[in-house]
């Protein structure tokens, strides 16, 4: 199958397009956002719209401002006087689990929650990530994957309308990462929050998201809508998206890309092609 389903939209036209009048309010709406640290301009004139329940991945080279954008949406960085609209029910999963080591697992999940049923809610959230049996242990006894699942439960227990994931699986081993992808997708289907995942892993972005954005030069420089059915296998469609995204990131994946994409990718490892 070739990929008519996958299309790239030049972002300039997207930004200026008027909104359809009947469109429901988006989960996130950012317009013309600027952020600078001293003389360094990190984000400039950035526009971003995330629909309710949409799963968006944000790619970018290191230093491109991915995390700055996520922190702004999380309310961790100031955005005074700028046009940034987010739901108040939002939760972050950071790159490190950031569990308080002096609180037992379930107390970490209920952190900041009010109400007498907090413990029951924590236990339900832990059950959803498959860790109900670890509710009363100390965080230091958890494996890296378990700790990150607790961090997911801690975010989910708040029923966020916007879930922000800041390279949450970067420090996990490949197998654990695949399991975490499945877990995140199933949780997203059940709770239907809008999701923004910041990652530097192109394959992770394609495997998870409805839409992949590339951040470059302080704004969204490219966008790919991905209509491949989940779970997404690495096939021709996947390869074509990956090639375009890598191109947008300034990486030339293969000089004869079109030729390779036409053939089903069955090579166990990438074949280096040499230009004539």
């Amino acid at each position, binding site marked *: 199958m070739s990929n008519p389903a996958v299309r790239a939209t030049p972002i300039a036209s997207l930004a200026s397009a008027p909104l359809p009048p009947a469109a429901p309010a988006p989960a996130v709406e950012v317009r013309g956002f600027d952020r600078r640290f001293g003389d360094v301009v990190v984000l400039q004139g950035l526009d971003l719209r995330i629909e309710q329940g949409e799963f968006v991945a944000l790619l970018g080279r290191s230093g491109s401002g991915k995390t700055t954008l996520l922190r702004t949406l*999380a309310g961790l960085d100031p955005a005074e006087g700028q046009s940034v609209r987010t739901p108040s029910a939002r939760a972050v999963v*950071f790159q490190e689990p*950031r569990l308080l*080591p002096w*609180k037992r697992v379930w107390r970490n999940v209920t952190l900041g929650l009010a109400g007498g049923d907090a413990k029951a809610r924590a236990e339900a959230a832990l059950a959803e990530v498959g860790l109900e049996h670890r509710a009363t242990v100390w965080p*230091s006894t958890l494996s890296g994957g378990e700790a990150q699942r607790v961090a997911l439960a801690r975010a989910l227990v708040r029923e966020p309308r916007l879930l922000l994931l800041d390279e949450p699986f970067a420090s996990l081993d490949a197998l654990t990462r695949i399991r975490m992808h499945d877990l995140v997708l199933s949780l997203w289907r059940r709770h239907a929050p809008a999701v923004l995942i910041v990652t530097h892993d192109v394959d992770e972005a394609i495997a998870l998201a409805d839409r992949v954005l590339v951040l470059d030069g302080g704004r969204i420089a490219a966008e790919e809508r991905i209509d491949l059915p989940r779970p997404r296998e690495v096939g021709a469609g996947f390869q074509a998206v990956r090639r375009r995204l890598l191109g947008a990131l300034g990486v030339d994946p293969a000089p004869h890309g079109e030729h390779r994409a036409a053939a089903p990718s069955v090579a166990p490892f990438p074949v280096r092609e040499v230009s004539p």
Partner: protein
Amino acid sequence: MTLVDTIRFPGTYSGVRWSRFGRRWVSPLLLLALWELGARTGVIPPRVLAAPSAVAATFWGMVVSGELAGNLGVSFLRVAVGLAIGVAIGGALALTAGLSRIGEDVIDPPVQMLRTLPVLALSPLFIVWFGIDETPKVALIALAVTFPIYLNLFSGIRSVDPKLIEAAQSFGVRGFDLIRQVILPGARPSFLLGLRFALAVAVLVLVVAEQINAQAGLGYLINNARDFLRTDIIVVCLVIYALLGLGADGLVRAIERRALAWRPSFLKA
């Protein structure tokens, strides 16, 4: 046979299995026996150092007469009151300086300057200010305790992982809740380390402070014993001082085991 099998772990000698605890008692007991032997044979005259058996007998006599309990109680109270005052002052200063920049700018410079003073050198001044009763003794201990508590709690508050603070804030934990749930528990290991230093220095200062016009307490016992060349009583008091230090250390360890139960080092034990 794998490599792991051939590694010999401490405490397992081939053949006889000694408990680690038991083995470590051998050399101290041997030294004690040598000391007793020296005293019995006259190598160590009693004016230099009384025999362990004589010390034990004196100790028992002082226990029976109530002399020891009374004076130990006086000394113990001095440490306890001085410690309580010092921990309260040092803790309050550290909280103020640790939780606000203004507090730090106001409090930290004078405290850093004062802590370079050897506390014991202040005893003449304290006698002038507070007389020669209990007050200068307790005040010296309190002052000596203030610094380790302040320094460790302050650095503990400042070294709480900012990422944990930020995560807690992102989940709506702010203000007093943030201090109670994140900052203070994070600073707890440093505070307990400071408490350990504080207890050690409190006993040390006690020894010197008690020499000020002592009417009761271990220092009084030692002063009297010195005048009558009673090395047995002096040794008894030294042992009591050592036990006080040991007990203080054990107390903090016990607190740590409860308060820091979440630490990996305690989880393995």
